[in-house]
C-alpha cells in the first residue's frame, strides 16, 4: 500500500448525487468509492458495482453446520457409544432435527459475519483514512483517485460542475492500519507521491 492522491466531492442530496454519478461515469473517471451515511438503494448499480455474493458464503457455512451435526451425532450414537434406550433405534434422525437445525443456523450466521468482516476488512483496532467526518452523518462523499487520465485540477472543476457542494484534494493511504481513532496518525511520516 502506498499514499495516493484523491479528489473528494461532497453532496448533500441524493437527487444531485445520482445524476452526478452518471456524469462521472460518462466522462470516463473511475470511482475510488462513494461514502454514504446509510445504504442508498440503487447507488451500487449506478456506480457499476457488481452484486455481492456474500449469501453464497452463508449457504456454504450452513451446509458445513448441517453436515457436522448429522455426521457427529451418527458417529456418537451408532459407532462410538451406542446406548440401548428402551430398544429405540440408535440412528434416531427425527430426534436430531433440532440440533441439526440449530447448528446449521449457528454456522451460517457466524461464518457469514466473519466473511463480511474479512471481505470488508473490518475489525476492532483497525483504522482507515476517512475522507469527511460527515460521511457517516449527512453527506454523500464521492472520492476519485487522481491518475494520468484524471488530472487533479480538471477533476476538481468537473466535480464542482456536477453539483458537489465541497471539493478538495486529499493525500491518503487507501488501506487500513492498526491504530487509534483519538490520535492523528499517518502510516508514512513523509508523504511521497509520484
Amino acid at each position, binding site marked *: 500500500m502506498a499514499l495516493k492522491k484523491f479528489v473528494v466531492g461532497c453532496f448533500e442530496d441524493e437527487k444531485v448525487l*445520482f445524476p452526478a454519478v*452518471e456524469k462521472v461515469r460518462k466522462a470516463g473517471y473511475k470511482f475510488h*468509492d*462513494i*461514502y*454514504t*451515511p*446509510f*445504504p*442508498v438503494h*440503487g*447507488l*451500487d448499480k*449506478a*456506480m*457499476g*458495482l457488481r*452484486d*455481492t455474493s*456474500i*449469501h453464497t458464503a*452463508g449457504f456454504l457455512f450452513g451446509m458445513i453446520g448441517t453436515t457436522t451435526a448429522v455426521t*457427529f*451425532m451418527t458417529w*456418537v450414537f451408532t459407532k*462410538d*457409544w451406542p446406548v440401548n*434406550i428402551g430398544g429405540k433405534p440408535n440412528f*434416531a434422525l427425527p*430426534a*436430531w432435527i*433440532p*440440533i441439526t*437445525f*440449530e*447448528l446449521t*443456523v*449457528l454456522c*451460517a*450466521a*457466524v461464518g457469514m*459475519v466473519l466473511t*463480511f468482516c474479512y*471481505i470488508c476488512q*473490518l475489525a*476492532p*483496532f*483497525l483504522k*482507515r483514512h*476517512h475522507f469527511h*467526518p460527515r*460521511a*457517516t*452523518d*449527512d453527506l454523500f*462523499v464521492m472520492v476519485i483517485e487522481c491518475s494520468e487520465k484524471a488530472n487533479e485540477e480538471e477533476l476538481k472543476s468537473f466535480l464542482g460542475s456536477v453539483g458537489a457542494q465541497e471539493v478538495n484534494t486529499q493525500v491518503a493511504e487507501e488501506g*487500513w492500519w492498526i491504530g*487509534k*481513532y*483519538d490520535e492523528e496518525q499517518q502510516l508514512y511520516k513523509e508523504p511521497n507521491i509520484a
Partner: protein
Amino acid sequence: MSVTKYESQLREPLVNGNKTYGQVTHDIVHTIEAKPTRLWYIGFYISVALLMFGAYSVYREVVYGIGQWNVNRTIGWGWDITNFVWWVGIGHAGTLISAILLLFRQGWRTGVNRAAEAMTIFAVMCAGQFPIFHMGRVWMAFFTLPYPNTRGPLWPNFNSPLLWDVFAISTYFTVSLLFWYSGLLPDFATIRDRAKTKLRKRLYGLASFGWSGSTKHWQRHESLSLVLAGLSTPLVLSVHTIVSFDFATSVVPGWHTTIFPPYFVAGAIFSGFAMVQTLMLILRKVMGLQDYITLGHIEAMNKVIVLTGSIVGCAYLTELFMAWYSQVPFEQDIFFKYRIAGPYGWSYWLMMTCNVISPQLFWSRKLRRNVLFTFIMSIIVNIGMWFERFVIIVSSLYRDYLPSSWSIYYRPTIWEIGFYVGTFGLFFTCFFLFAKYFPVIAIAEIKYVLKTNGESFKNEMAELESKNVDEFVHEMHHDDHAEGTVKVAHH
C-alpha cells in the same frame, strides 16, 4: 421518485417533524454525548442493587445447594424454570421485530428494532442463568457440551429436549448478538466521527471496526442483514418450540400436548411485545424520542399484542377441550380438578384475566393509541404470562400419578425470589448502560426511511395527491423515467 417508493398520505409518517439527516443523527446521539441525568443514576443504582441481591441469592444456592429453594418433590421446577421460560419468551420480540418484520417489509420496525434487539439479548442472558444454576453443581455446567473428555468419552444425549435447549438458547443468543452488533457498526461510526472527547473517539473507533460507509460495504451489509433475518426467522420460532418440547415430550398430564409449540411461540411474542412496550414508552419519554417512536408504532405493537393474546386464549380453551374430549381421567383431573380449581386455582384465573380478557380491550383504536393505558396493559400482560408458566409447571406437577407423593403447598424462599429479582437487576443494569452508551434507535435505518416515509415526504405528497389522476400518473411516470435513464445508461 419512482412509483414503487410512493406511499399514500393515508399511512401516517414513520418519522414525525420535518427532519434532515443531520437532525436525525443529533436527536439520537446527543443523549450519548451528554452527561447522564439524575433519573438515569437513580435507576441504574437501583438496578445494580437488585443485581447484588440476586448475586447473593445465587451465592447461597451455589454454596449451600438447591435446598436453599423450596423446589421439592414433586415440584422440581418451581419458580426457577418458570422464570427461565418467562425470560426466554420476552427475548422473542426483538428478533421477531428485527427479522420477521424485515422480511415482511414493515417499515415501522426501524424505530424500535435496535432497542428491542438489545432487550432480546439481555432477556436471553437472564434466562440462561436459571437452568444453569438449577443444575445444582453449577461448576459442572460444561458437561452439557459435547467435548472430547476422559470419561469414555461420554457424550450428552442428543435425543433429549433439555440438550436441544442448550443448543437452541446458545445459538439464539449468538445469532441475535451478531445481528445486533452488525447493525450497530455504522451507528458506532457515526458517533465516532462526531465525538469531541478523546476517550469517546477511541472507544467508538474501536467498536466501529473502522467502518467507513463505503457503498460496497453497504451493499454487503444489506445482504448480510437480509440473510441473517432469514436465518433468525425460523430460529426464533425454533427456540420457543424447543423450550415447549421440554414439557411436551414428557408424559405428564397437562404437558403432553401437541399444541405446545405454536402456543408457546404465540405466548412468547405476546409477552415479548408487552416488554418492548414497557421499555419503549419509558425510553421515548425519558429521551424525548416521540418523533421516532410514534403513536403509530405503539398502535402497531398493540395490534400484535391483541392478535397473539387471542391465539394464546384460543390455546387455553383448546387444552380444556382436549382434556375433556380425550376421556383420559388423569388429563381431566389435572385440568378440571387441579388447574382451574384446587389450591392453585387462583393462579389460573389470574392468568386468564391478564392474558385473555384484558388484551381484548385493544380492539378499541382509542385505547391502542393511549400511552398510559398501553403502559399499564404491558405490565398486566407480563404478569399474566409469568403466571401462565407458573400454572403449567406447578399445577401439572403438584399432584402426581401417585397420591402418596402429592406435594405440600409450594411457596418460594426468599433466595428463590432473590434470584428472580436479581435477573431484573441484570436486565435493567444492561438496559440502562445500553440506553446511555448505545444508539437506541438505528440511525442509518431511520435515515433510509426518512425520504420515503418521513413527515416532510408526506407533505410533498399532499400537493401531488391533490392533482387529478392523469396529471399524477404523468408526473410519477416522468420521474420514474428520469431515474431509469441513470440506471440504463450504465448497463
